[in-house]
């Protein structure tokens, strides 16, 4: 029996029709886990969309003025108030961690164990820095400015409610990602993907594809942040 050769499949729109009409796999050559992550991210997109659409509804229908973001999210550095300073740094760190993640995926596919592990670790630390700065931002808003989920001194009370809920939900995503990044950097350093060491829970072998799947999640979390950033800080 001949081998399946993905390179010999038809390309372009013909390929699309061929793949849909074929047996076994719709997405040719795509590992199960990767396809699963894409569908999960689609589902997660709907969650964040619902959050943000709800925010838009609240903001569009409020009778009390919505707080002015540059005022709320400003930091005073050396006596001068700089609007959106912290958030600019946070965004920079998170987007940078997306870059290191992409490099980690590249080294993963080259089976470069050491560099892949280090870049995963760098990504994890970037994510941890983001969560840390978010915690700082939250504590500043809560303890310094008196913003609460049920009220705030700046204007419509839905502002605090949506801010804490949506950034909290995103922060949870980042935290879960950070935990997995630490676990996977340990796995990579230990050489699990080279030796075929079995997973603790699933007792299944895994390989460097797992790094790409984790990368998909991490890039998604960053992409969502861009939207949250736009809706809370720039609108």
């Amino acid at each position: 029996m001949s081998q399946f050769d993905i390179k010999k499949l038809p390309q372009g729109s013909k390929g699309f029709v061929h793949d849909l009409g074929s047996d076994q796999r719709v997405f040719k050559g795509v590992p199960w886990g990767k396809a699963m992550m894409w569908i999960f991210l689609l589902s997660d997109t709907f969650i964040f969309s619902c959050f943000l659409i709800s925010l838009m509804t609240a903001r569009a229908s409020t009778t009390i003025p919505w707080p002015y973001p540059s005022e709320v999210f400003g930091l005073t550095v050396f006596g001068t108030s700089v609007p959106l300073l912290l958030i600019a740094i946070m965004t920079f760190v998170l987007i940078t961690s997306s870059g290191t993640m992409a490099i980690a995926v590249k080294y993963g596919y080259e089976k470069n164990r050491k560099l892949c592990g280090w870049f995963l670790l760098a990504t994890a630390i970037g994510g941890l820095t983001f969560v840390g700065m978010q915690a700082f931002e939250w504590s500043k808003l809560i303890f310094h400015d008196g913003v609460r989920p049920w009220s705030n001194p700046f204007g419509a009370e839905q502002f605090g409610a949506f801010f804490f809920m949506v950034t909290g939900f995103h922060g949870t995503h980042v935290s879960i990602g950070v935990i997995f990044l630490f676990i996977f950097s340990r796995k990579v350093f230990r050489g699990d993907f080279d030796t075929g060491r079995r997973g603790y829970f699933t007792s299944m072998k895994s390989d460097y594809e797992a790094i790409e799947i984790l990368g998909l999640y991490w890039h998604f979390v960053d992409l969502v942040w861009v939207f949250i950033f736009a809706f809370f800080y720039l609108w």
Partner: protein
Amino acid sequence: MSEKYTDNKIETKAADTSSGSYAPPVEKIPAKESPEQELYHAKSFWTKWVFSQDAKVIGVQYALTATAIGMIGLVLSWGMRLQLGFPETFSFLGPATYYQSVTMHGMIMVIYLLTALFLGGFGNYLIPLMVGARDMVFPYVNMVSYWMFLIAVLVLIASFFVPGGPTGAGWTLYPPQAILPGTPGSEMGIVLMLISLSLFVIGFTMGGLNYVITVLQSRTRGMTLMRMPLTIWGIFTATVLALLAFPALFVACIMMTLDNLLGTSFFMPEIFSMGEKLEYGGGSPILFQHLFWFFGHPEVYIVALPAFGIVSDLISVHARKNIFGYRMMVWAIVIIGALSFIVWAHHMYVSGMNPWFGFFFATTTLIIAVPTAIKVYNWVLTLWRGNIHLTIPMLFSLGFIVTFVNGGITGLFLGNVIVDVPLSDTYFVVAHFHMVMGIAPLMVVFGAIYHWYPLITGRHLNQTLGKIHFWITFVGAYAIYFPMHYLGFIGVPRRYFEMYDSPYMTSGVGLNQFITVAALIVGFTQILFLYNLFTSWYKGEKSERNPWKANSLEWHTPEYPPVHGNFGKELPVVYRWPYDFSVPGSDKEYIPQDVPQSQVPTAKAEKT
């Protein structure tokens, strides 16, 4: 065997039936694309039957759990009916108990019974077997999915035992009343309900991803999408709907939990309670309704589409005829699924949303009648001149068609804004949705259980008990819900604890008593069914292999009933669709999916 993957279209030559001369298609088997799936081989009792990673065991676990909680839902409906039929007779029924029964009955039946049973139960059991896979793609995640579902069910049950009892806000849980004092269960019941729903969504997502990827990426050789049994198409599309609709419910649950526990005002407007102004203000109750129904309407099809799929297979197998218009049936399922996302506000015609919305949502709603009508015509045309065996699955399938047409037609009434406004919040609505998404899918559930029970246990259910079960359930369902249409027309409002001496109830009192008696009889018949289910497990008549002479892969496993790994050493290769019954030119009455054309050279089978 094939030379090169690119050369081998599955059949290179189409059957040319127009000229009269028939050339059998040339078969080529595509090359294997995926390595053999590695499975976890359980050794102990606990990993084999309790923390099992085998989709078949998980499916049965899902089904049993769903049935158990469904029985609680059934008993709750008796409480409601006793109160409505014989008010002020039973001391254990007060207004609070009544509303709690209504709420829990609705939520349990829609989500924890039907959704879990169709997708978790039938989905898990049938998807790997029917597409020719060894198991779901991620068995471990699949196992966790079931345990999350079980925890969700336990949290739901726990709400019966907390102070204030379970929530009584109606199954739609509309704020602001759902979380304000005065509504039963506004203390802890509503919180537990919201948590339970969130857990259900998380658990379902894990299972749902498995079902979708197994169908998309783990089919056996020769199993193209257009050769899948319609059961799989129905479950697959419903799972996609669920993955995109449950997020809205999840978000609504989180927001309402925060409103309740933290005092945010996502859904809470400026409000007075007992003459005092509450802390809440500025939120939008309508926003909750939009989120809820963006989930709620696809949910109707999450329940209905698997039923559509399964019933198509039952009708085809038990009428010994190929399904009429297979491709049409597939596209109808997909189109219904897509449309279900743009019709949600037809549940909100009287909510106070912008009246102009009604135009749009009435239009999209009524368009759904087109693909559903196509499906009904195709079922009837499948039966037409078929060799109809009046087995119990067939009886239930026929019962489904009639009931679904009935519920569908009342749906046309309610889809129109102008007709909906007077009928909304009357018993007409109760009758409509019970017919269309209660009784009709349940008919399919029962038919499917009688059909696949031999596959799961190797034994038949008792046929006499089964026939009694069918006739009482079918006739009883009409005895319950037909009078409700009339009650709705004379204006009896739904959700009322008691009608007292309302003038329009003169003709309604006797009907309500009649409905209650019918509901009790139908309910007790389900206990008879459960008795049949459990005793037949070890006492039932032994079933020979493939008792219904079906073509799909689940009946053609090397071991019967199928064991761990499903298909022995080699996965089957599929050469045809599962509907080759009574094929002209063939001496065989049916041709299973894994039989190549070379073994049935004279059969003039459809090209699939």
